[in-house]
């Protein structure tokens, strides 16, 4: 492999990660339990993926947490907790959490929680300098590097266009969020069913964005903060044992996302799109898509059959379309923009375990050979595989 300037490709990555942690569990009585803990992380990274290997990035993070679980009644459990993070490069944050679980009967329970979250930008989001020459030649630059590198590439005539997100690049701020959850759970011998409604208000969401194109079309991504983002939706999960041999699991998520600042701008009539004649008109709220790279519908289904030493399974993963590029240039993502197509991926596998430690497994991933080089550079086409493994010291022969 060679780099853009023709020099041999050197991929050097050295990271050291030191962590000291302690947790103490205290059981006051049958109904009250407490966990207290704390830790310290010392992280350094030195990599050609992060700019040049002579500069070392360092961060120190200290944290402490406390959680109390109180069985107030036989049916009711209250959980209260808090976490304190001190991140040397960013901020100190206090994140409390409160949850409540109520058992309606032996099979049915409800759970509600509200909590604060804190996420500091990581080294990848800050310093990464990575070009995947194998898959579409896309690049990812950390936010600290992106503006500098892209401006330089632009000066050299290697950039064909700068996206609106490029102008929004600035020093990454840590992300603070408030999450609300309300869920029900049903469980018996054959079924496990849960449904959960969620809403997250995220201040300075750290989100990846397409920021520029190189001449020739290769994409450049970086990270920026979305000021007042939200995600909300429903997730459901079903597990069912049909009989001794056959079981299935199914999951589905419905997701809506957005940036409150963009919704305010739409409502104020400051966002435009075009009509059939090419004349500009005001954009409607209903045309707003929200955050890029998120699908409204995601689902998975798995069916598993086992009999003695034999197993077979099939997994279906579905993802509906998602928006990728603000092609009409109005600064946000709407139904007139570019979308990646929704897709279904099917994986199937079967295997047999012989009784002397030998096992054989064969399968195919991405059965229908779905590929999208531009939007899913890391999804290979149909893959067949056979694995044979042998365990020399079989402690539990069948």
């Amino acid at each position, binding site marked *: 492999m060679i780099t853009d300037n023709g020099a041999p490709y050197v991929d050097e990555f050295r990271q050291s990660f030191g962590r000291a942690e302690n947790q103490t569990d205290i059981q006051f009585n049958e109904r009250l339990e407490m966990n207290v803990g704390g830790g310290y992380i010392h992280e350094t990274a030195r990599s050609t993926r992060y700019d040049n290997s002579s500069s070392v990035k360092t961060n120190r993070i200290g944290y402490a947490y406390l959680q109390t679980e109180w069985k107030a009644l036989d049916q009711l459990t209250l959980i209260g907790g808090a976490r304190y993070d001190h991140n040397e490069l960013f901020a100190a944050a206090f994140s409390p959490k409160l949850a409540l679980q109520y058992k309606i009967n032996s099979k049915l329970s409800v759970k509600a929680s509200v909590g604060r979250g804190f996420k500091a930008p990581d080294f990848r989001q800050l310093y990464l300098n990575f070009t995947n020459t194998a898959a579409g030649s896309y690049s990812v630059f950390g936010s600290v590097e992106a503006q500098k590198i892209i401006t330089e590439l632009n000066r050299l005539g290697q950039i064909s*266009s700068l996206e609106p997100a490029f102008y929004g690049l600035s020093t990454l701020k840590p992300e603070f969020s408030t999450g609300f959850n309300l869920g029900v759970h049903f469980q018996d011998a054959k079924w496990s069913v849960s449904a959960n409604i969620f809403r997250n208000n995220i201040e300075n969401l750290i989100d990846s964005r397409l920021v520029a194109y190189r001449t*020739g079309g290769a994409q450049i991504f970086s990270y920026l903060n979305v000021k007042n983002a939200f995600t909300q939706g429903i997730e459901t999960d079903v597990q069912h044992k049909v009989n001794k041999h056959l079981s299935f699991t199914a999951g589905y998520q419905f997701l809506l996302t957005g940036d409150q600042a963009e919704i305010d701008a739409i409502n104020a009539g400051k966002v*435009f799109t075009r009509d059939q004649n090419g004349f500009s008109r005001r954009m409607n709220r209903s045309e707003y898509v929200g955050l890029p790279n998120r699908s409204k519908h995601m689902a998975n289904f798995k069916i598993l059959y086992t009999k003695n030493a034999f197993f077979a399974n099939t997994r279906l993963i579905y993802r509906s379309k998602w928006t*990728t590029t603000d092609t*009409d240039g109005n600064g946000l993502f709407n139904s007139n923009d570019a979308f990646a197509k929704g897709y279904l991926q099917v994986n199937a596998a079967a295997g047999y375990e012989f009784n002397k430690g030998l096992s054989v497994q064969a399968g195919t991933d991405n059965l229908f050979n779905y590929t999208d080089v531009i939007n899913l550079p890391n999804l290979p086409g149909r893959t067949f595989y056979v694995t044979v493994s042998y365990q020399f010291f079989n402690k539990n022969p069948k």
Partner: protein
Amino acid sequence: MSKMKKMILVLGIAVGFAACSKEDNGGSTNVVSTITVKDLPADTIIGITPGAPPTGGFPYGAGRYTFFSLESNKIVPASDSASNKWDLAFKGTTIATNSGNSGPGGAGAFVFVGLFDDLKSIPADSTFRIDNAPSAFAIPTGSNRAWYAYDGINQLVNPIPGRVLVIRTASGKYAKVEILNYYKGGTTPATTAPDAVKLSTQRYYTFRYTYQPNGTKTF
């Protein structure tokens, strides 16, 4: 089947223009009229540099501007480029004004964010920029700067909605311009169209403008 679709599309466009010109000439109370200019060539592509990106493979034109007079609604010959006869000049995605080092005129421009119809008068405190080519044009060049956004995946140029070019003409009158399309026939090729089509049909401007001949800033 696809031929039929194309026919319907063409018909649809024809109806669209008919409706548009009716609006322009019809019983409007406005003194000024809005004119739509179609397929103004702007240094159309004549070849592609040898090699592949990033060193080659770039389309190029003859490198000549098309000069246009808003007052007379006509293309002005290049031999008159050193005169007050033109207001705007088009070359690829660059739009020059007859001002600064682009021409001897007293033109100027700025980009108004909003709807064409909503711009009824130019605010008194507006600042008109003048050209300082090639580093800074009154109408900034580049994707997502002034009037267009480049779709790098599909390699198409799309005019940004809600952008009005407010123009002071070479002779000090005022006009407003909305760029509607960058491709021949006023229709952007499909994202799946072959590169050859995207290249041969680009650099043809469709735009609408209102010119106020009485020297005031109202439309």
